[in-house]
């Protein structure tokens, strides 16, 4: 999973044709439709890769 749009595993169904309602929240706090530490870690890696300072994520 390199980008948020990539599927973390086969359980993710989000696509342009069949968009997931929870996509925005799922990017940062997901996965929300299933439980998986690996899938959670995959998302966190994207956040960590781009967060250049502690305040980066805070708004």
């Amino acid at each position: 999973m390199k980008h948020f749009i990539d599927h973390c595993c086969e359980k993710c169904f989000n696509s342009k044709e069949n968009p997931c309602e929870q996509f925005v929240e799922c990017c940062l706090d997901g996965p929300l439709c299933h439980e998986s530490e690996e899938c959670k870690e995959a998302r966190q890696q994207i956040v960590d890769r781009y967060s250049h300072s502690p305040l980066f994520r805070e708004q």
Partner: protein
Amino acid sequence: MYERHILICAGTGCISSGALEVKETLVDELEKHGLTNKVRIIMSGCHGFCEKGPIFIVYPEDVFYCGVQPEDVKEIVEEYLVKGNMVERLLYHDPVNDETHVSHDQIMFYHKQLRQALRNCGVIDPENIDEYIIRGGYKGLKNALKMEPVEVVNEVKSSGLRGRGGAGFPTGMKWQFANSSKGDKKYVVCNADEGDPGAFMDRSLLEGDPHAVLEGMCIAGRAIGADEGYIYVRSEYPLAIKRLRTAIGQAEEYGMLGENVLGLGFNFKIKIKEGAGAFVCGEETALLASIEGKRGVPRHRPPFPAVEGLWGKPTCINNVETLANVPLILRHGAEKFASIGTEGSKGTKVFALTGKVNNTGLVEVPMGVTIREVVFDIGGGIREGKKFKAAQIGGPSGGCIPEEHLDLPIDFDSLTTAGAMMGSGGLVVVDEDTCMVDMARYFLSFTKKESCGQCAPCRLGTTQMYNILEDITEGRGKPEDLKLLEELAWAIKKGSMCGLGQTAPNPVLTTLRYFRHEYEAHVYEKRCPALACKALLQYQIDPDKCIGCQRCKKECPVEAISGEKKEAHEINQDLCIKCGACYEVCPKKVRAVQVLSEGLPESIEEKEACEEGSKCQS
């Protein structure tokens, strides 16, 4: 994971100062030192401090290097990234107190700023939607899609957001009109036709955070029931257009634009329309005509675009900065947005701070800060220790605020009361060397050229005003001109069809109001107190100071200067074209060439006669 992130400003200003070459050199240097996988390079949007560009920030330490050129990169990599030694010479040195600052939040330029609309500019890679999402992006849209359209309208109304493009009309009210208008099709239009000389707020926002504008447009679409939006952006902004296209593509891929947005049954697409750069196309009805492929000229209102807009359909038109604020309101709530600013002006405002201040660039401040704080704290005061004369706010539609109003709070209503206007956010600071009559003439030369010519008050009136101002600055001014200027100004304001003509006289009216003595010096004494109006100047050589170095004689393009080597020189006033070349080359230690504006004796007699009422028609 990366050990360090290096943000290089890739706004238009820093790119023109060499940011892309800095990046190329950095890529090579990182490779040479085996750091390619440890250091991430981010080409960010505008940091605001354009005059210090290219800006180069190293995170997580937040070391702010400025004015970095390709030849400096090797030293930064070897000394700082590898050995941990600060490269002092590239840090920011405060011109006021001569202190050196390491991180950007220590710099006065950033200290009093509150970057809300610019929250992501200079922070994220504008071409990476993932970074926008990490910063909270598209949460506002999600919230809006869970609300009823009228609830979205009410939220924006409660926030107190007013249009940032010029007039400051309440955004929520505009959305309410468009929401309640009946139509089988509605449009949202983003007005990115930024035309004020020296203004680059919208350009920087589009270049640095395009998704914020797209998200704002989607929310507006939800609020009024539109399924299509246009961004009208001038073709002189190629980087902004490129980044917008990239952002639209990403938003479509991520399901934030297109059919069934976020699976919530909302459809919205956005198209870009490139404008050819006419100033009048910033006026909403002219802009709509231009999108429709017609000549970009305004039309009478009503009907307003919210009722009858693009292709006759209800249309909501908002400025770039206005739209960039909208996602914050829907994400954090109206109350939080309204907690910043003054009673009648909520939130922040972005200004392009330029002119005779030490720190120029893009600044964002809470509504209600004073002009003094912007000029002296953020701007670092006047260059070369000179005296503040005025702040020209609002571009060619705005007005000049003098020193006695330095403590005026910056908000829509205070500025209007003082005769100026917020405008889109141009803020030009002028010092004692600027002639206010000449400044008014400059702005009139702009509006005169940009008038579409459709209505007579604007087309003829601005030309007449310009001709009078030109006469005054060239020594042909008549006593009755001042009264005539005022009469014309009010006639143009009242009689013009659109905002261009209605506001074009503002620079003249405010300079007449606050700097009338300068007009009088030009008209009655044929004298320019600021020594700026060429026709009213005389260049002379002080024979007691002249050392006969002959530099002025060699430089004079019309051979008006005579004198032997090591003997005092003289300027033939009949030949002199007042180009100032002699003044420029005269050694600073000698200062033999002097520029004067002492006026003409007959002009003073004329003034006295006028005061007695014997000759003056006014």
